[in-house]
């Protein structure tokens, strides 16, 4: 498989679908966990990076935090297969290194993954950013002070009607539910108001 080649599903000898996973073209080592959901969905939901379970299966947001996200959006009738779902990093985040000993590949890797994400912005009408790290990368202030509100980022096209940031849904697993519920309620309401 050539580097950077788009993902394809193929049929294996047993007749089962086999997920052919791309390798990151920058680190040339890690398999990518690529977006799921319809490419032409008007809604994009993304977080920071896949966890162990997601990396093993090659599917984003299938761990406990993904379960929170899925069931909270389902409360508003928003099914997982109706939105595009991904992470800024398509594999585990590269090591940044130390101040004295920066990983020279880090920025290059981040730039590539970020550009892949930016490609996902195209044609979207609503974007939900989940977690402190992606919010920071997008130049948005402290997540706890903006969670559940509309935000602006120079990286997101002005044509996108709804851009909202929220804390990582994983917060509901080890802390309280309120902020997660509120943000997802607000996002669902914004979609409804704009007929998305």
């Amino acid at each position: 498989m050539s580097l950077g080649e788009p993902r394809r599903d193929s049929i294996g000898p047993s007749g089962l679908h086999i997920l052919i996973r791309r390798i990151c073209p920058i680190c040339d080592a890690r398999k990518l966990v690529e977006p799921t959901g319809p490419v032409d969905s008007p809604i994009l939901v993304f977080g920071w990076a896949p966890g162990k379970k997601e990396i093993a299966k090659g599917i984003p947001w299938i761990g406990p935090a993904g379960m929170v996200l899925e069931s909270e959006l389902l409360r508003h009738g928003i099914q997982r297969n109706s939105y595009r779902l991904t992470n800024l990093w398509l594999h585990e985040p590269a090591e940044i290194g130390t101040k004295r000993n920066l990983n020279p590949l880090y920025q290059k890797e981040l730039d590539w993954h970020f550009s892949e994400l930016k490609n996902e912005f195209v044609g979207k009408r609503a974007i939900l950013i989940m977690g402190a790290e992606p919010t920071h990368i997008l130049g948005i202030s402290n997540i706890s002070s903006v969670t559940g509100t509309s935000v602006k980022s120079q990286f997101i096209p002005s044509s996108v009607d709804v851009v909202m940031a929220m804390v990582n849904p994983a917060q509901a697993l080890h802390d309280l539910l309120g902020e997660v519920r509120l943000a997802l309620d607000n996002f669902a309401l914004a979609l409804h108001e704009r007929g998305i």
Partner: protein
Amino acid sequence: MSTENVSYVKGLPLRDAYEGELVALDLEMFSQSEGRLHRPHGTFACLSVSFERGLDGTDLAQHNYLIEEVHDLRELLHRIRLGKWVFHNAGYDIRQLRRFVDIPQRSVWDTMLIEAGLFSGWYDSYGLADLYRRWTGNVISKELQSEFGKVSTLSDQLRAYAIRDSRSTLEIAVAQNAYISSQGFSIKHYSLIDEPCMWAIMDMSPARIDVDGWLKLAEFHEAEGLRIQEELGFNVYSHTQTKAALKSAGIIVRSTNRKDVLGPTTRKLRAEGKNTGADYLQKVIDARVFRKAASTYGKEWVDQHVEEGGLVYGDFWTIGARSSRMACSNPNLQNIPTRELPIFRKLFISRFDKGVIHVADCWQQEVCILAWFSEDKNLVAALRERRDLHQETADDFRLSRRDGKDINLGLGYGMSAQGLAKRTGISLNEAEAGITLRKQRYPDVMAWGDRQRKNAFAQDFVETSTGRRLWINRYDRQWERHAINLPIQGTAADHTKLWFVLCHQFSRSERIPFRIPLVVHDELVADVPLGENEQWKGLLASTGALSGKEVVPGMDMSIGVQVGESWGAKT
């Protein structure tokens, strides 16, 4: 409505407040330091005032004022006397304002307290910016707040900041009012308990400690901790060293957590007759307890928190925990390790010559509340007969009475056989047998627990007996336990707070000073001078029972009052 560039008038309002009109007030002080905000210090910067209605009283036009002169405060408060005063954290503003002007107790709308009362267990941050974001979907920055600590004159930027805060507070109050009306539920817990509790906290007296005794105790703890550690030959705070040492003593533990592992393991070894191992483990625990006590409650604690005359002013909060219990900080007087080291109680003494300390607590408070909720006939009868339920439970499990008490509370809260075995060191079979026995004895308690779990999952909250909602997070692995324990703990908190409030009200009506320096779980502590002894003893007992009648009608909440030279009157 946006709070950006809010217009305002400098000086007194151009009209009086209408009856019941919301009037938001926000005080800013110069030169105050974090952690000491409950103590009078710093200088007056300004008081911003926002009216709910416009100048002609009919519209929602912005109508804001900035008071920059202390001498205008009295006139301002007179002009808004008929309005409903709104604060965000009234306890802070009123306490500081009382330095400059007399403010008798009155009804106020405290957006922070209201919010915490509405959403305990749902949100954990109740700052002005948090509430504004949640209620309006807009963001306000609090970055300028720290500037007031650094300067002594107002800039236009700081003025705008101050006005924005009172305006934001007003908008939040309006939104909260609308929400409460739309939900159709009562906020009796606020008017009956939380708001008067906030006023009572402001009138609390300081606690006094025996400073010399405290310092000597810290030295003793330090020396004793090190002595035991030297005897053991390893650093008891090192997980690796502790685990290795225990292993060589034949004791295998999965972690070295004192409460969850070392304590139960010690009990288990003791129950199995392995006293040498239990003694060894106890030494590890003791060394840790002593070292921790020395480092947390040593000279630094005294330097930081003790004022002239050995007085300590804790910063008590009306709602500080998920169950809506009161909390305390700077210093936390509810967290002194009196259970492990009861000697600390003896160091809290009267600040009056020949004064005495009254320690009042409620007999089996949480068990009574469990009986009230579950209406379990056997449990109610047992309580009426004043049977020692903790001893009965201890006998069921063949453990000590102390364990029996823990088990009663734990099982009331839905503790599993596995959890019980882990906590007490008994075998899983013994735990299961004990639980089965208990289920047979108190069948309605178990049925109530099942109903609680079902309701909590359906509506995401449970309620105390006063109707206070305590929210449940269904994604939390402990949610079923919370569904059972929060109504009990929350109702216990309501009972204790109302008891405290009634003490305050009675002392005001009797025109005697409010003598309570400590509220710790189900205990009220009063520091009483000679001459008020009998009055306070009766007051503490009668108000505790009265609070019980209001919070859990029909259940006899009896109060015991012990009197002595120190908080150690009750051990």
